[in-house]
């Protein structure tokens, strides 16, 4: 039993991954039918050379808009192919090695993870704590639960190296991996192992659920981003047979693992590259949308930034690999779409720069048009794109999630630069407990941009009070509102978690 008096990971689920009414597939297909002509209507108008204002700004606008449209179309395409798989129990009793890789995480966090893993039903389960932190307390923990414990002499390749090492010491035909904070549902294997009866399936991925989403703002917003991915997007990827491994809550076939030489150890997002290898080798992947494990999301801005930096660096460095891959076009497109999401920070930077440049220099991307004319073409497309995201997420994607992503635009920009310069990155484990103090330094780049936007707006208003100035000041105000919403969790005093009134889930302990 966990040493904590209570644990958020024991609570009942607060998320219904699959909408009970109209399926996401139908919703998005209807919206795409409306949205596609509107996208053509907008871009047909925007790409007319008569619209060119300041040429370099127009070029930037087109680049940003084309990028966002590509992402939107990719999102529609993915979600329109949604597949909802039911749990599939195995028809025979099989052996499964369950890996819990740890690296200096608090023992009380890992405690419940190991306890839950030891109680998995539906297979002959052998749990292994893969300790890369040389922590004796972890060894004691493993002993307490009677599970296996593996410690390496040489700690190379981070989590990927740790798992690869364990592969050499274990022998079950299937391997389940849970991050140190992920408490497995007892039915995890009963829901996933049945899919392994197809000999071409390499792995079965399940959602990465943040049980602490109501504990603080960061975890809530970060979960909201996750919910969209592990909801509509992942089910859509499954419909396109393009699910990629997310590193935790996943069941592997050892044979598939070994056929590609295990996890790549030279990547920050080893799971993304491993998936490419497996798909290139002809293996299949499966996504079961039921929440079969409960984990902890980042609880402070530092942890969130660290996680996003790792994902952005990893995916962007994997982008050339995805482009070069020998995969069917739709699979390749799915990998490229996922990785290129981490370029979207650039579009935020571009949009934020427009009111600043307009108020300082008068330059603007589009010229010779009226606001009503712009709105007539842009507003319907924007409305449909936003509504589609809302409908696909079934209400789970929130403004706070959007704002958090926007406020961390700089991570994408910096990661792109580092990737282009081939600067080495290091694997940093996402901290599992929140900081007790405010963390303004974690959002400093966004705060600097807020300062610029506010200063330039004041300057613009002092200089001129016409409708064009008001319009650009309003744009700046929109950006400031979004950035400040995204930064707020780092600036506000951290809240003490609420431990009262918790309905608990069934967990094997």
């Amino acid at each position, binding site marked *: 039993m966990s040493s904590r008096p209570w644990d958020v990971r*024991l*609570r*009942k689920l*607060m998320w219904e991954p699959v909408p009970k009414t109209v399926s996401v597939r139908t919703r998005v297909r209807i919206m795409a039918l409306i949205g596609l002509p509107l996208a053509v209507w907008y871009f047909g108008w925007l790409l007319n050379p008569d619209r060119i204002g300041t040429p370099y700004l127009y070029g930037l606008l087109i680049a940003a808009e084309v990028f966002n449209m590509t992402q939107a179309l990719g999102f529609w395409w993915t979600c329109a192919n949604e597949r909802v798989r039911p749990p599939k129990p195995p028809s025979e009793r099989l052996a499964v090695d369950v890996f819990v890789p740890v690296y200096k995480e608090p023992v009380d966090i890992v405690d419940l993870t190991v306890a839950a893993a030891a*109680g998995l*039903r539906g297979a002959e389960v052998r749990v292994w704590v893969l300790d890369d932190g040389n922590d004796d307390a972890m060894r004691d923990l493993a002993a307490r639960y009677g599970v296996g414990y593996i410690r390496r002499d040489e700690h190379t390749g981070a989590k990927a190296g740790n798992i690869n090492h364990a592969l050499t010491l274990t022998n079950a035909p299937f391997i389940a991996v849970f991050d140190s904070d992920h408490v497995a549902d*007892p039915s995890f294997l009963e829901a996933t192992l049945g899919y392994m009866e197809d000999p071409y399936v390499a792995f079965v991925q399940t959602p990465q659920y943040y049980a602490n*989403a*109501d504990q603080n703002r960061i975890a*809530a917003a970060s*979960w*909201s981003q996750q919910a969209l991915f592990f909801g509509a997007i992942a089910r859509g990827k499954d419909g396109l047979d393009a699910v990629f491994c997310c590193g935790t809550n996943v069941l592997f076939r050892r044979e598939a693992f070994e056929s590609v030489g295990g996890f790549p150890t030279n990547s920050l997002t080893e799971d993304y590259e491993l998936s490419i290898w497996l798909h290139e080798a002809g293996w299949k992947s499966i996504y079961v949308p039921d929440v079969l494990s409960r984990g902890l999301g980042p609880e402070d801005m530092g942890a969130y930034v660290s996680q996003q930096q790792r994902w952005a660096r990893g995916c962007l460095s994997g982008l050339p690999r995805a482009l070069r891959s020998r995969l069917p076009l739709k699979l390749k497109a799915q990998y490229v779409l996922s990785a290129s999401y981490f370029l979207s920070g650039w579009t935020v930077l571009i949009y934020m720069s427009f009111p600043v440049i307009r108020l300082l220099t008068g330059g603007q991307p589009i010229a010779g048009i*009226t*606001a*009503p*004319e712009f*709105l*007539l073409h842009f507003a319907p497309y*924007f*409305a449909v794109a*936003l509504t589609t*995201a*809302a409908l696909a*997420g079934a*209400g*789970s*994607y*929130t*403004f*706070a*999630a*959007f704002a958090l992503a926007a406020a961390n635009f700089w991570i994408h920009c910096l990661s792109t630069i580092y990737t282009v310069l081939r600067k080495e990155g290091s694997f940093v484990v996402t901290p599992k407990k929140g900081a007790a103090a405010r963390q303004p330094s974690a959002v400093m780049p966004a705060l600097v941009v807020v300062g610029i936007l506010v200063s330039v707006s004041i300057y613009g208003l002092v200089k001129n*009070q016409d*409708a*064009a100035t*008001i*319009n650009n000041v*309003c*744009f700046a*105000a*929109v950006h400031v*509102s*979004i950035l400040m919403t995204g930064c707020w969790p780092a600036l506000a005093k951290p809240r003490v978690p609420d431990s*009262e*009134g*918790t*309905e*608990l*889930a*069934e*967990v*094997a*302990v």
Partner: protein
Amino acid sequence: VQTLKPLDANSWRTLWRRLRGAREADLFGPRGRLPTRGEPDTKANVALLALAGITAAGLALRLAIPRGIWLDEAISIHQAHLSIHDLFENLQYGDRHPPLHHLALWLTVKAIGDGELAVRIPSIIAGTLAIPALYLLGRELYDRRTGLVAAAFGAASPMLIWYSQEARMYAFVELFGLLALWTQLRAIRNPSMGNWAAYILATAALLWSHYFGLLLIGVQQLIWVGVLIHRRRTGEPMRAITLGFLYSLAVLAMQLVPLLVFAHKQFDSTGAALGSPSGTYDALSFYAVISNMAWALWGYHPDTTTQLLAAGWPLFLLLSLLLLGRGGSRQTIILAVAAITPIVILIVVALYDRELFEVRYFLVAVPLLFLLIARLVTGWIRNPGARWAVTGAILFTLLLGLLDQQTNDGNPRLYDFRGAVKEIRADAGPKSLVLFEPPDMRYVLDYYAPELRRRPLREGVPRRREGSPVFVIASFQDNKKFFDRTNRVVGKLDFRRRLIDKFEKPQTKVWEFR
């Protein structure tokens, strides 16, 4: 395997609410107003006191009327002076509105005369009563706090105040629209005979106030259908609601028959000519839509101010982003549909007839928009201090808009006929002749200067012996026909007589010739 017992069976719902933001109680279940996030609602007696204060303040703002009677009001006052038989004849063959407000005005004039304040009393009463009606609707949908904030916004709303000060039917539409929705929600929750009767009466009053009341009534029928479908799905009792709905539909149909006959005669008689002159409109543009929406919230302002308000459209992008992840409440969806549908229908209609897209025609949506804004404030802002600050800031902008609307001569809806006629009367003698444009201006002159000899401009230039001095009073000069005719006659008079004075009042021009 050990199963850990739940500590609190309902806690996950509370947590889910926190995660999703403000989740209101189920509309169609038993009355279960928020407290969201465990925060207690405003106490009943405190709410009552606050509502009394807000209503009193709203009444005071509505009684402070700086402007005189304008053309449409003058027509209504003229009709109110007729016998009841002639009033209906006049309405059937010379108007395009149902008769409820005209009857109320007729009774008012008979009871307390036709002074500027007297003829506006029915609208002032209706507009003031709309404040508690807005509170009741807000309370019924959400909670007392939301009702109070909405009532405060409604009390200070420049647009609602403007039409509460006009001797026309729009304040009736506002009041009966709110009551129709409120009584409908009560009938859904408790389909008692009294609630059904109240709903049917409120809907009838709305229908007989203005034909555009049908827009909201149509939305209400959709709400009934939605409720029935929902109940069928959830297995809740349907009989009382179904019977009540069918009965109300039958009563509505019974009213529609005579009303449609009445309307047919009206539209047949008035043909292409509307009851009152209007400006020459450009085709419906996004700017027209945005400026009308800005007017709906902050009142009428000169073009320059409206352009500045319309330039704030990027804030709507922010609002649409803020709505992400906020959906799910049936109350808010119903409210949004009731507020937006009439506007959208009028936008579509205005693609064919631009004149029909005007704030006054979707005035019924304005208090609903304020209720939505109130809900955003009370539902989204957790900190009570911040909630007060945002409510105060919104009220401040409304009062600023009100001040500008009521005092700025550039207000495009301000027609200072009273000021113009006053100056004419000061210079007029027994032989004076007043030429007026448009023709319906005669009702204004009937009201303010019944002793003056007058004739419409379209009857041509008077001969020298027909009178002196000759005054020309012209308005609605954005209408090309009126502008051309005024120009022609003034030009001829200028050629034949001596121009001795020329002045302008808001939306009114006056020339004096000898």
